[in-house]
């Protein structure tokens, strides 16, 4: 089983990515959580074209390779940002998520950990809109429930307001624990979603997510 974890800069896609459910359960779960714009509140910006369902798209594990440890930042339309990664990291092609930009991965042995970046390139999108959207998606997915949300100044950003929401898995075979960190940015919010199957890895995941830093802060 692939233990790869990935990061991604993208917007939430409307449709479920076409990835193998057995082999890439973690990615599938995350994609479900992230997908769709329905729900209460203002619709989020339209996602970019989703190439993940294109015929002949490579399997997610096929393109993984080790990440240069020195590389930590991602360029996005609304700025550049980086996240600290603990443990071995892997780099995916990004094509599976409809993006050719390289992404980061976080690897925790014996766990399926997923780390995904998204940027909402619209300054009118608020933290409230993104967090409401995320809660709604998780609720509709029915495999985890919203546990709590905190708002604070991002430790790495002087006046950068961040929201960290925690979702806890329901007791079934696909139980996962999920963090959503949404950070207000000048060009629109940036969201990092991380999930793990093991609660004991939650702290590591939270720590990695909380190290998100918008370059220039």
């Amino acid at each position, binding site marked *: 089983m692939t233990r790869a974890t990935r990061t991604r800069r993208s917007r939430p896609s409307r449709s479920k990515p076409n990835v193998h459910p057995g082999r890439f359960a973690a990615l599938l779960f995350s994609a479900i959580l992230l997908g769709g714009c329905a729900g209460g509140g203002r619709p989020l910006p339209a996602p970019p074209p989703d190439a993940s369902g294109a015929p002949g798209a490579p399997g997610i594990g096929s393109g993984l390779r080790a990440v240069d440890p020195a590389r930590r930042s991602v360029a996005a339309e609304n700025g550049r940002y980086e996240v600290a990664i603990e443990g071995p990291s892997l780099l995916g092609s990004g094509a599976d998520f409809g993006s050719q930009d390289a992404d980061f991965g976080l690897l925790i042995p014996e766990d399926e950990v997923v780390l995904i970046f998204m940027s909402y390139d619209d300054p009118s999108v608020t933290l409230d809109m993104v967090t409401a959207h995320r809660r709604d998606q998780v609720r509709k997915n029915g495999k985890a429930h919203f546990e709590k*949300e905190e708002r*604070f*100044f991002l430790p790495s950003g002087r006046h950068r307001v961040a929201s960290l929401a925690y979702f806890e898995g329901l007791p079934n075979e696909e139980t996962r624990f999920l963090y959503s960190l949404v950070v207000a940015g000048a060009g629109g919010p940036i969201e990092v979603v991380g999930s793990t199957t093991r609660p004991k890895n939650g702290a590591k995941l939270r720590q990695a997510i909380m190290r998100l830093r918008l370059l220039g802060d």
Partner: protein
Amino acid sequence: MRAPSGRRRAVWAGRILLALAALIVAAEARAEPLPEWLEFRPGDGSAGPLAHEALAKLQKERAGWLDAGYGYVEVAWRTQITIEREPRVRMHRTEMRGFVSDVGGQQGGNFEIHVKTSRARISILRAYLLRSDGSIEEVDARSIQVTDAQAPELFSDEKRVTIPMRGVVPGAIGVLEYEEVRDLDADPMPWSLYTFLQMAVPIASQEITVVNERDPSWLDWKTNDAELKCTSRAADRIVCERAATDAIASDPAINSYADLVPHLIFAERVDWNALAERVGGLVEGKLDSSPAIAAEVERIRSGFADDGARAEELYRVVSNQVRYLGFEHGDSAVVPHSASETWAKRFGDCKDKVTLFVAMARALGIDARPVLASTFHFDAERLLLPAGSYFDHMIVCSDALRVDDGCVDVTLASSPAALPFQLQGAVALDLGTGPTTRRPRLHELPRREILWEVAIEREVELGCDGGARETVARSNGGALGDIIRSALAAATPADRTQHLNDEFNSALPAIADRPVQQISGLADPSRPYSVRYSTEQAAAFQARGRESYFDFDAWLTFHLRSMIIENKHHPYDLPGLELASTTRYSLCERGRIETLGPTLRFEREWGEIRRFYTLDGDDLVVESKVRIPSRRLTPAQAADMRLSIGRVLEQSAIRFDYAID
């Protein structure tokens, strides 16, 4: 009654004009003769060389000053102080004011001299306007007005002389030259002269000369203006000069310009101990008693168990039962009336009331010491040498009192036994003689970390019809709340209502139907006063299905906004705020809370803002806490804090999800 015809109207109009003209003439003719301490020397219609220099300067610089937005500028100040042997101080002063625009005439067309008439005489040597064409308009002696310089509650012989320039037009120079002779014989206070060297308008040139005819060791002087060049051209002569001095930059939040503006001080040489002993001796000399004082002391002794309770009761009596009214004629400006006289009159100024407090405290066996305070200096380092001119108030301190190092201001009624907001952190000089006298004598009074304590209780009922009923009770405490309470207690009911309405409009500008607000607790200084009101709003929210509820936390926002400082030039001593707000939401019987809102944990070096949501049965309780301690903020820190608070305010709405079947 028949309407007046056109001819009659013309006749009446003519009569009215004549009457008005007669009134104006009568008013000038009725002008009272000048008082014996004020002499006016008529001008000879000529202007001196300095005035012509000033006029040339104005003509050269006027366009620039106009562009900078000044209505007038001080073109030249010349002061000569002669310390005579008699003992007497003679001050010869010339002020030349350039009028830049019409507004400048309105702002600075009247010159003023303040004089303590019990010891000083004024001679106005020249007062005229020099126009750009060289013509001169002399001041009319009959237009000089003498008024009281103090507040209505202070009866004194300190006067303000107002000299209105005639025919002021832009481009003209107003000139006032006068001499003040001050008698120092048997003056209870050491002499000092304190001169600010910067103003709200530019001063194009200043020159101050001091001629000391007494022993050189008699005089001390010092300045904190690095640009002021002072030289001793002879053993008995000091000349200080400064060319252009920019106007002091203004800022929205200023504790005191006196701490910002450079100054020059001349004073009779004395050290802080000697000054304290001399002023303290004035109080000590008036600590008498009377049967009436003894009776009140006995009432307090028998009615209260310990020194702390007795000292607090004594504070209540002296601050509330002796009203503030000063008789400050002659040396009474600095020498208090006796304790027995003040108690008998039931009125007195700060030093009278302090003397009464000290006398009664000592009769109770409680230590109490008078303390000089400055209401305009909050930084002891700004006091350059020992001088009484730095102080304008007297308070009392006792170790028996519990807060603020036991220091209280007995001039404030309806206030707790504590330092008022205005004196928190003020510079003080301990005048005590006992073992508890503070060393060093010159110090800054304590400044509390939290000066504004606010509590807000909201009950919000969300009905199944979509209506919202809200009851709000908010209380204001701490030193800032106390000073507002003291002012509200003294205000008329109409003024109180106006104050509450202003606050409400500021916090909730969108609500057109302002509710009736009830105020309580004004008479009890031991607890915060509170304001209560209720509102009802139909169709306030969606009362069906699963929805999100957003609530603008108006009072939290109101108080947080008050912490935003827009200063660009000067530091500001921010008064600390502690706010606790609890909002309880009760949903109707078919409703339930689905999701709690986000916990807020915003922390920075300037303070913290927290919010927690909890369920209490079917109710949702939202608790918000703000703690921003008192601190000195530089403009850069203020900008940083402004940005942070702005971001927090964006997140301050209360939010939760609910469902109604």
